[in-house]
């Protein structure tokens, strides 16, 4: 976890004070923690060695900036090195005359079929005419899976059953795409082991015969150390042009992506972030670097908050906070803002440290509870919303009845609101930094 890495580093550096530079010894103690954190994130052993070496060079003798503690300094250097290693992303290459062929390849169970559908959907949204190709003839019902997805998304699927050889299917699909004016052809190939020579040969054959514009390796975010061996072999057999990291909506830190990028030099293009077909996000190196360090997906969270945020409302809200005139109606409006950011559950998963904890606080982050709170506030009169002190026993009963809740729930809401008002008052008195400090930056 980032918090614990940052805490550990803080402990490491506690003994050191007043010195203006980091000594070799200080740095080595700190780097041990960094090394452990990276290994914990499944960054490949060899890659960790290289990385730590580079961090060491930069950290030793580095001037301690006034604004950063030694721990923050080391983290900053690590973060920067991770970003540099992850490299920049790029868009899919759809240059030249269509149809463009995109081939997906990877180990069994890495998520190729789901990703093929996601890519097709995204490309269609971008104005392309995608054709999905069922080239996995081995896994039972792999073809049916792609067909079902195609039907759900209303995207055409080229399939010939499981008899023909996959390279033949791909060639036919390309011919069909030319005739029917599809602009992108997405090949869903079967999962295979890098050491299965026959199956790897099949991939080579497909590449030889349909010359994909993009050959993307699909990598499961939960993969461990062996992924470099796998990726190196795939890259050797069919030069890869990009990577897609799947199942990134879990709590795996995704060091596998960094490892593969580092040993193959192939850029990461997308992250798969859910089972739904629209859960495909562009890759962002800074964000993945934070994640590998266990910082959670803070950038995503911030971005979502920004997207859902209404500037004018925010200013008005600030003024209310400052003058401590925040009432239940404002509370309600705020809730609507938060709701625009997505399911609470999902938001909580992005906050560092909380992802693991959420199991223990299910009621507090329950969207259903939000609905009940909304109902209670809706059952209040405007006066009551403005001044909750008006709400006496009989009013509480009326509100409970009107919202299908209980008096004790109303009491709870009012209690929480009072607590929040108190907290806001503290914040407006300028005591905010203490809270943010908990996130370790």
């Amino acid at each position, binding site marked *: 976890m980032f918090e614990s890495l940052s805490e550990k580093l803080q402990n490491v550096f506690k003994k050191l004070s007043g010195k203006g530079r980091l000594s070799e010894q200080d740095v080595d103690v700190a780097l041990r923690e960094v*090394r*452990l954190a990276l*290994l*914990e*994130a*499944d960054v*490949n*052993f060899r890659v960790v060695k290289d990385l730590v070496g580079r961090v060491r060079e930069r950290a030793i003798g580095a001037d301690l900036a006034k604004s950063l503690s030694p721990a923050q300094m080391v983290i900053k250097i690590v973060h920067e090195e991770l970003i540099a290693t992850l490299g920049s992303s790029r868009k899919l290459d759809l240059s030249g005359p269509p149809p463009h062929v995109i081939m997906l390849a990877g*180990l*069994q*169970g*890495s*998520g190729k079929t789901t990703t093929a559908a996601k890519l097709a959907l995204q490309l269609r949204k971008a104005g392309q005419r995608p054709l999905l190709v069922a080239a996995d003839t*081995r*896994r*039972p*019902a*792999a073809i*049916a*899976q*792609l*067909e*079902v*997805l195609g039907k*759900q998304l209303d995207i055409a699927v080229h399939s010939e059953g499981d008899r023909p050889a996959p390279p033949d299917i791909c060639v036919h699909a390309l011919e069909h795409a030319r005739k029917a004016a599809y602009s992108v052809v997405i090949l869903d190939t079967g999962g295979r*082991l*890098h*050491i299965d020579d026959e199956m790897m040969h099949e991939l080579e054959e497909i590449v030889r015969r349909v010359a994909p514009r993009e050959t993307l390796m699909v990598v*499961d*975010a*939960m*993969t*461990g*150390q*062996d*992924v470099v*061996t*796998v990726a190196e072999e795939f890259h050797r057999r069919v030069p890869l042009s990009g990577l897609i990291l799947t*199942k990134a*909506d*879990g*709590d*795996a*830190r995704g*060091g*596998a992506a960094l490892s593969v990028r580092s040993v193959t030099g192939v850029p990461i293009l997308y992250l798969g972030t859910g*089972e739904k077909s629209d859960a495909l996000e562009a890759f962002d190196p800074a964000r993945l670097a934070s994640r590998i360090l266990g910082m959670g997906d803070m950038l995503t969270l911030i971005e979502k908050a920004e997207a859902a945020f209404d500037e004018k409302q925010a200013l008005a809200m600030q003024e209310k906070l400052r003058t401590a005139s925040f009432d239940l109606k404002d509370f309600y409006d705020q809730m609507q803002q938060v709701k625009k950011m997505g399911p609470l*559950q999902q938001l909580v*998963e992005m906050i560092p440290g909380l*992802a*693991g904890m*959420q*199991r223990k606080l*299910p009621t507090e982050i329950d969207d259903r509870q939000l609905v009940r709170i909304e109902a209670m506030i809706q059952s209040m009169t405007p006066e009551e919303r403005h001044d909750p002190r008006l709400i006496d026993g009989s009013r509480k009963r009326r509100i409970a009845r009107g919202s299908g809740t209980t008096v004790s729930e109303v009491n709870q809401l009012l209690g929480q609101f009072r607590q929040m008002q108190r907290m806001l008052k503290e914040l407006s008195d300028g005591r905010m930094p203490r809270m943010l400090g908990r996130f370790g930056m």
Partner: protein
Amino acid sequence: MLFNRSRKLQSSLTRTRQSLFGRLASILAQSDITEDTWEDLEAVLLQADVGAETTIAVVDALRERAEREHLKSAQQLRGALKENLLATLQVQAKPYLGEASRALSVVLVVGVNGSGKTTSIAKLARYHQQLGQKVILAAADTFRAAASDQLQVWAERLNVDIIVHQPGGDPGAVVYDAIQAADSRHAQIVIADTAGRLHTKHNLMQELTKIRNVAARKLPGAPHETLLVLDATTGQNGLAQARTFQEAVDVTGLFLAKLDGTAKGGIVFAVARELGLPIRFIGTGEQPDDIAEFDAQEFIEELFQ
């Protein structure tokens, strides 16, 4: 032994031996114990996905032991390491399905997306068939596209009965019906497939708990075995997976799939150490025959030959 180990398993173990422990063996064959010996040892374990924490624990314990027992040669160290690793994997646990003299046993199969659940179920079905037991499959993955079609193909190939509902249906109801069917058709084993789910999805884990409860209501004591299918290529996240699935559905053992690749599956040491979960079976290919009972002794022995 109940099952003849397939040639594939032999070759996969040989490969593992050659790559990982082959290196270990060559390290340990050098006679004197030096600082390099320790460092190399650590590197080998880390690269096998054993994980930093477990590796440090294993190496520290070995160091202590080497000192206590005055181990001088790398040869002795090798014996000690083998024993320590073996001890880690030998957890206190009931055998698979307990002392199964009951008329009907239910096996629930869970795991993250794509770990190999459905294929492993085909293997388990085959395993029980070979024991002369009648098997019924429950296609309780009603969520993923064509998931039940996939299991149906295996059911046909293996010639076992299967209970299937509509896509999007209630998975608990599928398990309920399968137990009912097993009862009336005098089957001895129900194996339930479930949709892959990331352990971080709280609501999906709750759904799994519900499926479990439905099984228990229909047949007291069910499920008698809850297997977590772990992909051998999984890194450190495997521990979080095992921990969360265990909390949600009381996992009783692991099915370590995809051991026919070059990944070592070293995360099982951490899982055994922290959660005390036994490894029941290993998967070594894509066909129903590619299954073997896990045998810690043999596994470690094989690795060191």
